[in-house]
């Protein structure tokens, strides 16, 4: 009896200790979150210093967003994310495999790990500012290329769609590949050495080792990387905002969804911004769900599905 009550009181203290977090979460996250959703049904903005609203207008904000260029900005965001993410995951995988390979014995591993992580430590806006200066028409990159005789006329990097988008992708790649590498390394090091040894004895080549052993075994971490990268990508803001001065130049081709959101907040348009946030929330929820289902596939060779089908057929036959 006594023992029992003691164990219960321990559990109670556990709740008490996590209470501050939930209190904070409730006050600073959940209530504003619900408010955002609530305001998305209202007309509520500021004109000059006069407040307009809040007046309830139902789904009008959602409808007018669909009529705007929102989908185009969604596509921009996706393109910018893909440009950055593909090299990021490829390079990270390659580096992670090399760094963890016992046979390769790369020297100065610690040093390289620090170096590839460094770009992530710089503030994104400072990084964008730096690139803006380096790649400006009269900037150092152009000057170097000119003096080396590679180009005859200065290249207007930030004036072209390709230039701006690749720069943004490149910056996102630079900032995040180190982080991904380190995460994937941890995942690979979690794989038992026995598996690698057995594979080697069976004459497994480097590529097969990667494709049939490493990839399937690090899938949970890959899924995590993918999900966080997608959410991060949807929220892409600081780099293109600073690089294009908030305009998404040229011709709004590098305007991301959050930059679009931000331009609504300039007039304190909480209604429209709220509706856009709800859209973003739905999209990220769907994306996460798809990725989660895709990577948590517990039926990799289709045997379970086949078994189910057989069972069904048998039942039908019995009838």
């Amino acid at each position, binding site marked *: 009896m006594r023992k029992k009550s003691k164990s219960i009181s321990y559990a109670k203290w556990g709740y008490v200790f996590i209470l501050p977090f939930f209190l904070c979460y409730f006050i600073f996250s959940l209530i504003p979150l619900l408010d955002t959703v609530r305001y998305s049904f209202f007309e509520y903005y500021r004109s000059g210093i006069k407040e307009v609203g809040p007046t309830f207008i139902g789904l009008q904000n959602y409808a007018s967003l669909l009529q705007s260029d929102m989908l185009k900005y969604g596509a921009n965001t996706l393109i910018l994310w893909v440009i950055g993410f593909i090299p990021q995951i490829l390079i990270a995988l390659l580096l992670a495999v090399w760094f963890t390979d016992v046979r390769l014995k790369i020297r100065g591993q610690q040093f390289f790990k620090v170096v590839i992580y460094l770009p992530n430590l710089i503030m994104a806006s400072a990084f964008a500012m730096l690139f803006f200066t380096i790649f*400006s*028409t009269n900037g150092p990159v152009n000057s170097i290329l000119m003096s080396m005789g590679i180009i005859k006329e*200065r290249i207007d990097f930030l004036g072209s769609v390709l230039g701006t988008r690749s720069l943004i992708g490149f910056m996102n790649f630079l900032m995040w590949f180190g982080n991904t590498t380190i995460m994937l390394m941890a995942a690979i090091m979690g794989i038992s050495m026995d598996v690698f040894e057995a594979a080697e004895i069976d004459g497994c080549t480097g590529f097969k080792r990667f494709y049939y052993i490493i990839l399937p075994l690090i899938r949970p971490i890959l899924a995590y990387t993918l999900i966080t990268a997608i959410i991060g990508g949807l929220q892409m803001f600081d780099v293109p905002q600073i690089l294009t001065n908030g305009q998404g130049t040229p011709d709004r081709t590098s305007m991301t969804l959050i930059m679009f959101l931000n331009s609504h907040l300039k007039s304190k348009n909480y209604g429209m911004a709220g509706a856009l946030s709800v859209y973003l929330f739905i999209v990220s929820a769907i994306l996460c769900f798809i990725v989660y289902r895709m990577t948590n596939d517990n039926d990799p060779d289709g045997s379970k599905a086949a078994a189910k089908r057989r069972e069904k057929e048998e039942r039908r036959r019995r009838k």
Partner: protein
Amino acid sequence: MKKKVIAALLAASMCAGVLTGCGGAAKSGGETAAVEEGKVINIYSWNEEFRQRVEAVYPEVKETSADGTVTTLNDGTEIHWIINPNQDGVYQQKLDEALLKQADAAADDKVDIFLSETDYVNKYTDADADVAMPLTDLGIDPEKDLADQYGFTKTTASDMEGVQRGSTWQCCPGLLVYRRDIAMDVFGTDDPAAVGEKVKDWDTIKNTAAELKAKGYYTFASYADTFRLYGNSIEESWVKQGETTIKVDQKIMDWINSSKEWLDAGYLDKTVKGQWNDDWNKSMGSESKVFAFLLPAWGIDFVLKPNWDGDDGAWAVTNPPQEYNWGGSYIHACTGTDNPEHVKDIILALTGNKDNLLKISKDYSDFTNTTSGMQEAAKDEAFASEFLKGQNPFEYFAPVAENIKIAPLSSYDQGCVELIQNSFSDYLQGKVDYEKAKVNFETAIKERYPDITEVQWSE
């Protein structure tokens, strides 16, 4: 048992820590005002400029605290300086928050004076918004007390009915600032009068631009450089009072067309896209091929001078192709102030007293808001500038200031001016066609101002 008590204490202290965190912050916000009624003047501004001017000429000032946040007057009244940077609209955001709370704020928390810039002065002088007091309510008669001010500054600070709701010490007529060495090379003279003749109006300056082009020089750095000249001479305001339609004036269309023409002809540097960026700054250096800039007094001091890497005396000023004004800070008395007498004194001392204004001109090289004073300065050799090789810029500033016709304002000006330049940048650089640029402007302006329903284009 002991463990239990400790655990409980720890848990309690954690919660308490969280809660006091919030409580404490709220309290400290209110504490600053715990002084007796009418003894605090709160002034909202975006930099130290106004404080320095007040310290320099307001006779009641006793001392300012070392950190520059509180100035004590002789009668014990304290001026509290609330300074937020102008960048990214931070200043306006903070000011708007304070103004919305003005009615409920404790007497000493109320905003008493706030400043605004020409680009958004109309947002605050709007009669409907009623945040800036009419000067007559303070006991200032603009006709009499501010008679020496330039007329256009009074118009700018007035609402739609012409009631003046602000006043400025500054007046920002712009000039054409040019490189003497390039003028020597192309025209064979660097005399301001001779060069002025070559740039006196748009037709003449276009011919001059061709001359400069032939020698490999650009007339101006960027298409944005000429925008103020066109934008400040529009016939009708961007948005009329009570309407939700933006009317893009013919003058703006003229700016777009002539910028395109100039850019394609090679009179402007294609690599400089707009102002306030690195390329623009570099085009003011000695390596640059840019002949001239269109700048007001503050532009010469704070923009051109720091970017120029050669010796003093390389630049000169002359008349611009068209009179224009660029910038200017307005002082407003905030509705609901509890220190109307002090506010009146400060406004009069800073904007209606010729001696004070001349002192500001001398100490800070502002072009100040006194017609007769500036005419004297134009003849006074003491105002000559080293940077301009001993030329007295006031000689050129004064007549420009007298001829400025300020465009009618609206509270949407800042967004319109900013976004039309951004949208048509793409067009001027050949990234999009004309129609697409129009559409982009319409999209952007409706995002910025949700109440705008339509955009009408001239032509």
